[in-house]
Structures are given as structure tokens and as C-alpha cells.
């Protein structure tokens, strides 16, 4: 039997934001691209998201947020991920995140931010290219 590595993705919705159209579209596109997608469902606390990523041992975490609360929530999520030792997980995000916040988010360790109008094809490509190398 051969190794059968699959990319495991967590799509997470932090905070009270309940816009799920984009998150679902992205989740579906990643699934159709052959990935194993775990979706947290809505209204997750940073603790829930970090703990889920930990238990599910995902390769990448995609945060979807349209509410503008990313400035409060993202730092908490990134902090918890670090505390749990999840430093080899690629974290990226999408939704309504003003351009002027993107730098700040990247400083937190969020590798990329995708706004409205992004083709899912580009997101798939991004994931494929940024899956952390693991042994």
C-alpha cells in the first residue's frame, strides 16, 4: 500500500458574522479540487477554531469574515494557534477586509487575504502551492 496524503483544510467562521455564501462556495471548490474540507459552521470563538485545527491536524486554515471584526478576532486566533504549537499550518483569509488592514493581518502571520471577486481557481492554486511540507 502506498502513502495517500490528502490536503486537509479547515474553513472557519469566527465571531458573530453569519455571511456564509462565500465560505460555502470556497469550501465546495476546494472539495471539488480533491481536498478534505472541514467547515466549522458559524459563530465560532477563536478557541473553538484553534482547537478544531489542532484536533483535525489540518494543513491549512481559511478564515472567512465579512463583519469587520477581524481586527479583534484574528489576533486572538493567531495567538492561540501559536500557543498550541500550530506554527506549521498555513493560515489565510477571505471576505471583507479593508486593504489598509491587510498588512496588519499579514504581520500576524496570515499569509494571504482574498477579497470579493476572487476566482476560486486562484484560491485552489494558492492552497496547492502553500501546503506546508510535512514529513
Amino acid at each position, binding site marked *: 500500500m502506498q502513502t495517500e496524503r490528502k490536503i486537509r483544510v479547515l474553513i472557519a467562521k469566527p465571531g*458573530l458574522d453569519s455571511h456564509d455564501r462565500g465560505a*460555502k*462556495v470556497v469550501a*465546495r471548490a476546494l472539495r471539488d479540487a480533491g481536498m478534505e474540507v472541514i467547515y466549522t*459552521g458559524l459563530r465560532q470563538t477563536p478557541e473553538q477554531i484553534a482547537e478544531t485545527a489542532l484536533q483535525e491536524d489540518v494543513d491549512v486554515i481559511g478564515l472567512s469574515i465579512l*463583519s469587520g471584526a477581524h481586527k*479583534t478576532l484574528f489576533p486572538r486566533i493567531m495567538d492561540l494557534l501559536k500557543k498550541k504549537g500550530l506554527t506549521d499550518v498555513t493560515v489565510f483569509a477571505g471576505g471583507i477586509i*479593508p486593504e489598509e488592514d491587510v498588512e496588519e493581518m499579514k504581520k500576524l502571520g496570515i499569509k494571504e487575504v482574498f477579497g470579493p471577486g476572487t476566482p476560486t481557481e486562484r484560491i485552489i492554486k494558492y492552497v496547492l502551492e502553500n501546503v506546508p511540507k510535512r514529513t
Partner: protein
Amino acid sequence: MTMFDQKKLEEVKRERTRWEQTTLPNWLKQSRERKTEFHNHSGMQVKRVYTPEDMENMDYMRDLGFPGEYPFTRGVHATMYRGRLWTMRMFSGFGTAADTNRRFKYLLKEGETGLSIAFDYPTIMGYDSDHPMAKGEVGICGVAIASLKDMETLLDGIPLDKVTTSMTINGPAPILLAMYVAVGDTQGVPREKLGGTTQNDNLKEFFAQNLCIFPPKASVKLTTDIIEYCARHLPRWNPVSISGYHIREAGATALQELAFTIYDGISYVESTLERGLKVDDFAYRLSFFFASHNDFIEEIAKFRAARRLWAKLMKERFKAKSPRSMWMRMHVQTSGCTLTPQQPLNNIVRTTMQALSAVLGGTQSLHTNSFDEALCLPTEEAVRVALRTQQIVAHESGVTSTVDPLAGSYYVEALTNEMEEKAWEYIHKIDDMGGAIPAIEKGFFQKEIADSAYMYQREIEEKKRVIVGVNDYTIAEGKCPIEILRIEPKVETAQVASLRKLKRERDNRKVKEVLDKLHYSAEKDENLMPTIIEAVKAYVSLGEITEVLRMVYGEYKELIVI
């Protein structure tokens, strides 16, 4: 029966065949059409040309009638905009109650004719501003209203006997309505003069907006409490705004939006009849809320079909006698999901077209989105342009001079018919599933919407659908060319402090007493409106009231369908 002379119709048929064999092929030979097939958003095929043949079976009096008369296809009022223009109602709310109060006054000064409140997430979800889940969310996506005190500030200086107010609130709708009533009482406005709308459409939350707090049955119970209470005490209040907007924005097609919304309406009529009210005692106060998307004619057809469909349902299924029970009065919002952060000024053009469809479709009330829709809550400038868009349509376009100007267009009528027919198919299908709640539990609506949303996305990516500035006619975007509205964190600090102060200073014995009473009422399944009004007047907070209801009803967990 037909509206056309049989001989003339035959002539049209003959001539069309001839045209298809002679003129058309020549044109097609010279240049092919841009696509082999043309479709609207609902996936219906659009023909090359429409003729009287497409209205062959139309009966004017049966299918259209006169404005203000059954089946109301041409409008619910006899004079429509020749009499009164639609209500220009801009959905607004951000920061503290005082911030939003200033925005309200600004908009009223600029010519807005009705208010519409956007609440922040904690309020929408029934949490107080100091709840742990509220951290970072206070005032960010709407105005923070945790108690009657905030509502007093929000409505300060606004005469509730003159202005009507719409509130986009669902789970906690009884609480916000109670607060509004309380402010009305303080202003000395008689309750029978209090006009406005609570969205209060909990069903669509389960598959479109997702802001569900309680399980379906309890949610419908609360919706119905308001309908019943208004029928008895607030005759000018629209207790529910049966909303297709959210369904559409979640990704549904125009057809799905139409059918699912109407079905929610059916459910509320049924749940209210179960309370022992007669249909004509409350149906005239049910109102609707639709989206106006990009396909100009399709949207107009949808609005017209919706009115006719609802009138038939009320008359035939629910045996309404009063024509007013058959009216579908609607609010329309231009479609936010069509707006882009790329080249944001293009959004003004989209919104103008969408506003025009809504008006040609006969809406009673309209919100137009701002050009910064895909970036942030509207800045003052953006919202002013959006309001001006409506004013220009109203005063400069000329479409308001006659009622239902597009009636009789072969395309419009054919599409109106098709919309109605296909909507009936959905309605019967949902009937067969046992109604809206079983359909929700099966994930039926969710699946339909998720599939349409995904298809829409695919069409854009495959360029089957061109979105100007996004997948075609793009430019290097560079720095965002417009100013962005930002909500400062100090809003939360101030709001939390003021709420905590209130909680210290109010009569906390009384608070406990009313909350116990509420608990008891909820368990006994009484109409909760009277007790909630009593509670808000004692400055019991929104979170405290919701907490009691959460205890009694439990919390809902979404059924996710991807």
C-alpha cells in the same frame, strides 16, 4: 379566451415563420449571435424575440386587471406613483445610538421619507454589548441597542407619529418592537398611530440569513406573537416583512427567491390562523421584502408575478374576502451582492438600474445600496448618492407618470407568466414535503440555494457571466479610490460602560420580577409581547430577555448544506 383577434394572431404566426426563414437566416449568416442560448438568472431560456403569440392565452381582466384591483399584477394602488412616491428608506446603523441618530437626521434632511434600522451583531443575536461573544462586534455592523435607554437615544427628536420605521431584526424582534412601543408611549403617540415594520421573518433565517437563535417552532411562535399582537393593538404596524432579499443574496435565483418567500408567507398565515384570528383580521398587514438584481426585465417580471401569486393564494387557498388581504405590499433593496470593490463607482450605475426595476415593478418602499457596499458600511457621501439615485428615478426619469408602464410588453408578460407558473411548481413541491419547517429540516431550501450560489460563482469564473471590472474590463486597482467608514473601538468601550451603569442603577428587584414573569409566560406558551413591553420599560436588557427565552426554547444549531 384571448386578447387578440384569432385571424390577426394567425397572421403573426405565419409572418414569424416567414421571418425565421427569410430575414433571420441572412442576419445570422452575416454575424452569429453572441451565444447559442440566452438565459436569465433563473435559468429560463430567453427567446430571440417575443410576439403576441407569447400572450396568446392571456386574459387581460383575469391576468392583469386594473391597478388597485385583483389580481393586483399592475400594482396594489390605483394611482401608484402618480399619487404617492414609494417610501425612500435607507438601511442605516453603526456605532452608538447617538451616531446612528445623527445619520437618521441627516438622511431625513436630505429627503429620505422613512427610517430603517440596521442593528449590530450582538443585538441581532440577542446578546448584550458586554457579552463575551460581543467582543469586537459592538456597533461594527449596525447600531448597538442593548436597552430601552439606547432606543431612546436612537429615536431622540424623531416624531414617531410622522415617520415610519423599519427594523431589520428577527429573533429578538419582540424586544425591539417593545422598545419602539415604549418610546412611542413616552412621546405620547397613540399606539394605533405607530407605524413601521419589524422584519420578524424567522423562517428565512434558517436557510438564508442564518441569524437563528431559537429552534424553528419557537421562532415561528415568536413571529406569530407579533402578528397577533399587532392585529389586536398596533393596526398600523407591519408585524412581519416576509423576506426574499436574504434568500436571493445567499445565492438563490429570482425564481427561488419568489417561491421560497411566498412559501414563508403561507406558513405565517397558517400559524396565525391557528391562533384563532380570521384571515382578514391580519393578512392586510403582512408585508414583503425582495431584492432587485441585475437582470432588469426578469426582476420586473418577478415583482409582478409575486403580486399576482399572493393575491390568488390569499383568495383561493385562504379564502380572504377583503381585497386588502390580497395586497402584496413590498419593500425592495437593490442587490448588494452585485456590487464590487473593483471600480466602486460602477456600483452607482448598477444600483440605478436595479432601482429602476424595483420602481417599474411597483414597489412601495426602496433602499438603494451605496457605491461602497463591498467595502464598508456606507459613508455619508456614499449614502447620499444612493438616496439621490432614488430621487432622480422618482423625479427625472418620467417612469412615475403612469402606472405599470411595462404592462403589455410581450416579453414582460411572458416572463411574468413563466415566473408565476414555475413558482407554483415549487410551492406544490414544498406542500408535498409537509411545509416550510419539514423542508428546512430536510435541508431542501439550503441545498437549492447553495447549488445556485455555486453555479453563479462558476458562471463568473468561466466568464459565462461578465461582471464589469471583475472578470472583464478590469484595471490595475492600486489604492482604494474611495474613503472607508471605520468604527472605532471606543464605541464598544463607551457602550459597555453605559450598559453596566444602567444595570447598576435601575430597579433590579423589578427586573428580576419581570424576568420571572417572562419565564413563566414563555413556559405557558402565552403571547409574550405584553410581558416583554413591561420588561423593556423596566430597563431589562435585550440580552437578559433573550437569555430567558434561550433557557425555555433552547438554541438552534444550523443544518449546514454545502
